[in-house]
């Protein structure tokens, strides 16, 4: 059965091919059917695999399918082969599941767009590449998926290509991630030069034999891979592209820039966990990057005016949590949070999309409001999403995943109270801005007329996602509650767990849970008050902190920094030597020749007597030479 794994990416690719080659000949209805059915079938196959793995896992908890010999050389033989294990299944199930729902959502959301077919072709292509990325069993194939999703991200951010600003955002996304990709490439070269293979399981098996714990090579390899992950997952210092990426259609933001592609970095680190385990400083770096990112991005999210940018910064922040978890070795925790985050963040984006659509493409939070009554379905689902994001205790999946993550941070040998404290601070801010979002959009006076109401398919998708966001956390519960560890057991089949649970810490766990709950509730309450009844106090505060506000608004001014130190120098360099200075050097030769020509031309004065004088001079010189030889 598992040999059918090639269908997973092949179906969306086939959908892409049909839609591209068919072009405008395919009707909208057919296009929607093709796009959704390919992803839908992939989802079904994926679910069958997952169930199969749970019931009766194959030998070594993995199944490899080699499709063909791709780069067969003496020095390195790279097959085109897919590897199905629990890690790739965890990723792929989210990709196909969320992907399918978002396809379904888009059939309605994009119905007014003239480029309907192109949109679905790109979406299908994206799902195909993303599945290829998580199913690849060697680094080169992984790169195909890795860059492929980058391409789709570029295409979909710039989907409305007539506006140059969208094009700029799209190029920014591609180029910034490409910087990370260059690091990843170098890392792959290093791994190959040291270990002689690019097959990921072999690399993970060989690395501990060849490299000592804490060796420089392992550190270099891990840091270079981290560079790729940081770029793709929009973590510091390469996070600047993600807020701008919101220029794309909202379903794209939900699928690519929230649920799946941006978490590819998390996947990559989890996939190459063996290398990171060999390099504790690299682990520390991951944790520090994660914690710094989660806090800074959460602060930035707090002040944004554009609803999608709030969600974008919140995505960066949530991925920061995942990185923090990865950095402390809590692989399962990170992946669990990835999973719940994919559900509720997709939900938030899709609900926001419904709001934006209803308000005539208005994205400014301060021109929304009062939508609670007018869009009840959207309100309730958005509220559930925001609650998950804020990790409201007990009822949300976000709570369970974040608590597991924080608990792992607390007890992990790599983690500790400091990281936990930062994460808690981030959680407080998260709760604050989640409450702010809900308050500004759905409460208060209505500021913009509602022009369209979401239809059946949008509602259906929102409800499904909301239900999942509420109950999805049930697959993994803290052991003090019920001790459900379905998900971490599932992941542990592929990645042996690093964070051992010491016995007898129940009291600590209870305390931490309580503290976290209090902080989150406090944050949410404060947010609701500030953006509801306490508005005057908020405005007074805002007036006093204008500079800080602007600073956070611009995402800690990273854009300006990079613009100054990287972009503008490069552009200036390009402008400065536009005509190729080396050509000038060539002209130097021409110039010299010409100067010599002019100089010698002078002797051609046309006067007979001076020619005669020249001849005589020559005679004198020759005689002199002959004499004194």
């Amino acid at each position, binding site marked *: 059965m598992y040999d059918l794994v090639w269908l997973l990416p092949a179906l969306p690719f086939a959908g892409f091919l049909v839609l591209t080659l068919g072009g405008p000949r395919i009707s909208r209805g057919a296009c929607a059917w093709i796009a959704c059915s390919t992803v839908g079938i992939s989802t079904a196959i994926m679910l069958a695999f997952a169930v199969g793995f749970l019931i009766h896992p194959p030998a070594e908890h993995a199944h490899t399918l080699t499709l063909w010999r791709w780069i067969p050389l003496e020095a390195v033989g790279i097959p085109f082969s897919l590897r199905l294990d629990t890690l790739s299944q965890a990723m792929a199930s989210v990709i196909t599941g969320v992907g399918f729902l978002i396809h379904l959502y888009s059939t309605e959301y994009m119905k007014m767009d003239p480029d309907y077919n192109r949109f679905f072709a790109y979406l299908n292509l994206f799902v195909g590449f993303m599945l290829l990325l998580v199913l690849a069993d060697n680094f080169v194939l992984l*790169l195909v998926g890795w860059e492929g999703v980058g391409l789709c991200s570029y295409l979909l951010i710039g989907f409305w290509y007539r506006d140059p600003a969208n094009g700029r955002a799209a190029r920014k996304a591609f180029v910034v991630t490409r910087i990370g990709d260059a690091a990843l490439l170098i890392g792959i*070269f290093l791994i190959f030069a040291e270990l002689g293979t690019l097959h990921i399981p072999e690399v993970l098996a060989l690395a501990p034999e060849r490299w000592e714990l804490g060796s420089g090579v392992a550190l270099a390899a891990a840091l270079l891979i981290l560079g790729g992950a940081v770029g793709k997952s929009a973590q510091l210092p390469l996070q600047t592209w993600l807020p701008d990426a919101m220029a794309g259609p909202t379903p794209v933001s939900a699928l690519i820039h929230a649920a799946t592609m941006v978490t590819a970095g998390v996947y990559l680190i989890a996939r190459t966990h063996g290398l990171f385990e060999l390099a504790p400083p690299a682990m520390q770096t991951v944790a520090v990057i994660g914690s710094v990112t989660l806090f800074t991005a959460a602060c930035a999210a707090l002040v944004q005016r554009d609803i999608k940018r709030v969600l974008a910064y919140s995505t960066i922040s949530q991925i920061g949590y995942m990185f923090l978890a990865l950095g402390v070795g809590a692989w399962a925790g990170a992946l669990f949070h990835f999973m719940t985050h994919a559900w509720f963040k997709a939900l938030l984006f899709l609900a926001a999309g419904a709001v934006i659509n209803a308000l005539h493409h208005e994205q400014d939070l301060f021109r929304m409001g009062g939508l609670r009554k007018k869009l009840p379905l959207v309100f309730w689902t958005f509220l559930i999403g925001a609650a998950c994001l804020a990790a409201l205790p007990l009822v949300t999946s976000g709570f369970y995943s974040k608590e597991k993550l924080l608990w792992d941070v607390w007890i992990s040998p790599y983690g500790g109270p400091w990281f936990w404290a930062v994460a808690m601070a981030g959680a407080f801010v998260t709760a604050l801005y989640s409450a702010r979002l809900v308050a500004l959009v759905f409460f208060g006076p209505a500021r913009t007329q509602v022009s369209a109401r979401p239809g059946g398919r949008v509602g259906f998708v929102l409800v499904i996602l909301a239900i999942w966001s509420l109950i999805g956390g049930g697959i993994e519960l803290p052991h003090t509650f019920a001790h459900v560890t379905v998900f971490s057991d599932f992941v542990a089949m592929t990645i042996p767990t690093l964070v051992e649970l010491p016995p007898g810490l129940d009291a600590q766990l209870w305390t931490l849970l309580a503290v976290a709950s209090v902080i989150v509730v406090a944050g949410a309450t404060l947010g609701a008050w500030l953006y509801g009844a306490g508005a005057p106090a908020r405005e007074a505060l805002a007036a006093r902190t204008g500079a800080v506000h602007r600073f956070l608004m611009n995402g800690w001014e990273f854009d300006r920094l990079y613009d100054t130190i990287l972009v503008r120098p490069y552009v200036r360099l390009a402008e400065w030597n536009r005509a190729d200075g080396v050509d000038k050097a060539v002209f130097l030769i021409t110039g010299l020749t010409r100067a010599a020509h002019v100089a010698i031309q002078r002797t051609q004065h046309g006067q007979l007597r001076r020619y005669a004088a020249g001849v005589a001079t020559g005679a004198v010189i020759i005689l002199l030479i002959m004499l004194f030889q």
Partner: protein
Amino acid sequence: MILFWLIALPALGGVFALLAGRRSPEAARWISIAALAAGFALAIPYLGRATETGWLAEFSLPWIPRLGISFHLAMDGLSLLLVLLTYLLGILSVVVSWRSIDRRVGFFHFNMLWILTGTIGVFIATDLFLFFFFWELMVLPMFLVIGIWGHENRNYAAIKFFIFTQASGLLLLVAIVGLAFAHFHTTGVLTFHYDELLGAELTAVAQMWLMLGFFVAFAVKVPAFPFHTWLADAHSEAPTGGSVILAGVLLKTGGYGLIRFVVPLFPEASAAFAPYAMAMGVAGILYGAKLAFAQSDLKRLIAYTSISHMGFILLGVFSWNELALQGSVVQMICHGFSTGALFILAGCLYDRIHTRDLSRMGGFRDQAPRMAALGLFFAMASLGLPGLGNFIGEFLVLVGAFQASVPLTVLATLGVVAAAVYSLWIVQRVFHGTPHSSSRITDLNLREFGALAVLLIGLLWFGLYPKPLLDTADKPLRELRNHASERFERATELRRHGEAVFRIPDPGAQTHPVRRTDAPETHRHSAATIALP
């Protein structure tokens, strides 16, 4: 005999096209296509036999026996790939010139076919004198193509092209004659035959200078970093078909020469020079990408991307290991495809809006979605998107080069970022953005679309299933490495430990004038050590 026809077909086709062109331009075009297609069909069957060792085919006629010069042709897998590339791009360049060339059509096709004749000759000549003959044969028709059918600044570009290639050709001639005489000096046999010269015993100094002569000649063609300035002008001023041939095929003769001649003939000198050559390659990658980004002329931009891409070949060849060499070969083929396609696209745009100025383009996706899709595809190929052929080439080159030089490879890898910048810039400037109200363009017609589709399928094929390509190039590269790797690596070791010094077997202690297979025995070092210039 088939080898002879590979050369004779385009040459005769050119003559007939010239004659027919007086009466009917259409006939000249069809004759050209027929001649090239026939050559392509003749060469194709050899693909299946490329796993055999040795030459796949040989052809020899005495020419000037007194000087040891013969009309000697031979083909192995490496040559075969490039010959096929030449024929394919030749056909496509005739196809895309169908409407855009309307003056002196017969003469145009005559020139095009004679360029191809010279190129194919370069790829399959095994007599160095003959090689040089074909090398020069490429230049003059190309000069005419640029000078007669080019764009507004064509005279300047044509003369620049001519002077650069002639000057480098002179170096090549001097080096070839020097090599033959050095061989004559030690063995008493005057010959220009490649196989025999492979075993030439040279002093360290002679090896260095001869190597530099060959190297510079090929580096100008490739073009490597400081010698690249002719390329931008020639490419941007040439007519579409000329640009395609120039970028797709002519540049490859340089890469071919590096692989076939420079390192195998002069392993020690090449090893000593390798860091500099690789640095030139990396400089080309970064510098070309930087310049490409700054251009406002579409064809000029594409021309600079060529410099960037061909830098990988220099980097790969002088790493001289299996991965890097295979990568260089794949890169040569795929660069021919992707850049050829970009030039065809630029030509299609020029046919429609009569400008190459990027600032007068934009928003063409609205009116020409097919062109936009193909443009996007080839821009992606050019930035090395994994899954397309160029990625295989660049990746293998970089993996191989990483083993030879870590810092240079790291720098070269930064080139992929720069490639993204300029490739996306093309897409943005030409196809995205708001359309100019003034410019209305039609989408690709079937002829143009067909030509581009061939290249698209090729790039996808090489990206997803490069095995046939790699297998075909495998045997010849293995033989070249068998011949030169040991000496190359020993010299590299010496360079790493002994501060840019390398040793050459003493020519006085020669045992065998013929091909050397017993390198360890003849490995008596003299004190002849030289430092790099």
